[in-house]
Each structure stands twice: as C-alpha cells, then as structure tokens.
C-alpha cells in the first residue's frame, strides 16, 4: 500500500482503499483497476490522492531521487543556498529549507522520468 498523488497514477494500478473526495464521498471503490478515464474523473471530482496496492510511496520518492543526475541536484542546492539567507541555529528555517528542497527534487524528478512504471513491474 502507498498513498500516491493523482498526478503520479498510472492505468493498471489497483486501489488498496476506496478513492474519496474531500467530503469523504466514495468516487471509486477499493479493488478497482484504474483506467485513464478513472484518473481523469478523479481530477474532476476533487480526489487528490489515493491508496494504491503494492506500491511503497517512500520507495517511489527514493527511486525518483536516484534517477536525478548530480548536476540537477547541485543546481537545486545552489539555488536554495542563494534563496535562503544564512540561518544558523534557527531550527525552523532549517526544517523549511529541508522541505522545500524535497519538494523541488520531487518536481525535478517528475519532469525527468516515469519511475512509477518500473516499481509497478517489480
């Protein structure tokens, strides 16, 4: 089981839990095999993330990171170094910077590859 953002869904994945919108209304019941049509209707009906069988979302993130080249990682780090002023001994700023870095790396990874395909086959 793994929670995936709807942007990371692929046809053929299986719902581990029913997909619900923000009001808790079921849009598609658990056990269904996703089709492109389902994925599009999630967007229309306000479903933002779903639980998928046999997928570990941490593993998805890890694989995405591995797919990134050193150049991309370095350029993101350089950009954040300039964007964040020095914040020694400020744990809140340290945490924010860490989260922003994670988000930026994920975005870069999403642009470069479709790693979820590989994991699905494993």
């Amino acid at each position, binding site marked *: 089981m793994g929670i995936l953002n709807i942007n990371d869904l692929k046809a053929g994945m299986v719902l581990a839990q029913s997909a619900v*919108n*923000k*009001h808790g*209304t079921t849009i598609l019941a658990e056990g269904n095999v996703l089709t492109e049509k389902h994925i599009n209707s999630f*967007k*229309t*009906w*306000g479903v*933002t993330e779903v639980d998928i069988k046999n997928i570990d979302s941490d593993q998805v993130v890890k694989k995405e990171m591995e797919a990134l080249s050193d150049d991309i990682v370095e350029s993101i780090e350089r950009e954040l170094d*300039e*964007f*964040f*002023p020095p*914040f020694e001994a*400020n*744990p*809140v*700023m340290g*945490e*924010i*910077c860490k*989260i*922003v870095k994670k*988000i930026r790396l994920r975005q870069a990874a999403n642009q470069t590859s479709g790693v979820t395909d590989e994991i699905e086959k494993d």
Partner: protein
Amino acid sequence: MKSKKIDKIINSIGDLPTLPTIYMRLSRLLSVQDSSIRKISAIISEDPAVSAMVLRIVNSAFYGFSKKIGDLQHAIVILGLNEIKSLVLATSMYKLVKQFKASRTFNMEEFWKHSIGCAVSSRVLAETANIKNPEEIFAGGLLHDIGKLLHAMYFREEFDSVVKNVVETGSQMFESEEKILGFNHAQTGSALAGKWRLPRETINMIAYHHLPDMPEILTKEVAAVHIGNTLCIALRMGSGGEKRVPIINQEAWDVLNLKLSDLEYVMQRSTKLFEESISSMEF
C-alpha cells in the same frame, strides 16, 4: 518613523483606495447573532462580481456537486459564513489589485498570488495550531502587504528604486523602503487598514508581519502571519518582490506551540489550497 508622520503621509493622498463597503457590512452583520441567510445574501447580491465569484467557487470541482447551484442563498449555506467572509474579502482585494496598472518593475499578478499564498499559509498554520479565528488570520495574511500597493500607486519612482535595490542587494524590502522612502509598507499598510476601520488585530497582523519591530504582546495571530509570509515565499507562491526568504523569529514560532514535524503537513496543505484558490480566481 513616528506613526503620526505616517498618518500624515496617508492623509496627504487624496483618493485613497477604498475597500468595498460590502466586506465591512458583512462583518458587522455576521458579528450579530440573528443575521439571516436572506440578509447576507441581499448584501452580497449588490455586488455582481462577488456574487459571480461565490457561485463559481461553489460550482467548482472542489465541492464536487453533480447539479449546478444557481441560487446565492443555497451557495451561502453550503460554503458556510466564515468561508463566505474570506471569499468576499479576497474578491474585494482582487478588484483592488486589478484596478490599476503595473509599474515597470512590479508584477501585479505575482503580488496577488503572494497575497493569496500568505493568506492561505497563515490560515493553515492557524488551523493546525488550533487558533480559534482562522478566517481573521486569512484576512490579515491577505492584506499584510497592502502597503506595497499604496507605494506602487502613489510613490511610483521611489517604489521602482526600492524594487531595484532589493534585487541588487538582496536586502529585505522593508529595509530598502526605509532607506529610500523613509518608511516601510507595514507602516503605511497598517495606517490604511486603520482608515478602513478594520479590527485592531487585523491592523496588528499587517503592522508586525516582519517582527524585528516587536509588538508589546506577540499574539498568535501576528505570529501566524509572520510565519505564513515566510512559508509562501519559500514555496514561491507568487512574489511580493522579496529576493530572499525572510528569517522566522524564533519567539513567533514558540508562540504557536507547533512541532517541527507539523511543518511538512502545513506546507503541503497550503500548496494544495493555494493552487485551488488561484485556479478559481484567474488574474
């Protein structure tokens, strides 16, 4: 600079921008116990732009109703009064920002997104920290940089120099403003909010959102907007002209009584709500 002098500057401006009266009337009506949906709907329907926005939002995919809702009273019941109040303020502010042309150096659409980003992030922080009036904090976040709008309108040349100075030096905008104009946007913005007769707490959220100039009592509301501002800049939700992420004051963080591990949730939820908000209010 003394607040009297700021008032003098504000008073010297002949045609100050006005916040549409609809927001203040609605706030007054909502503060009394027996406000009926019919009365609220009557006020909102006087402003076609606001009415249209309310109906557009309630009919968006976000709420996921299968039948189209065409009736304002019905929409108010669904959205709830606090949501309506935030929506009316956001629409009023939107009209204000859209009204006038951008300066050479300052992008109004980016400014609008920054305002919405701060409003949303501050509200999510407030909700996560269990502060009782998140919609008031939304209002404070939305208006926190309203002083920049004043500067862009009435101190054009100086404002362009400020924006240039920030780009060149990487200093915070309020520091460049103090150097070039002699006052900063938190001072003019809170003075304008005073003219608009907004609540004391809203004025404080605008006045102290940078927090090197500490208020006597650091309230949770002020702390939420201070941190919300940093979060939305770090997440690049629009731009209010800053080149670098403002450092969060540790005392403000302590006041909210949140854990560091709450931050990831707050930032992800803010990003999601921000994207939904700007897609329903295209610039």
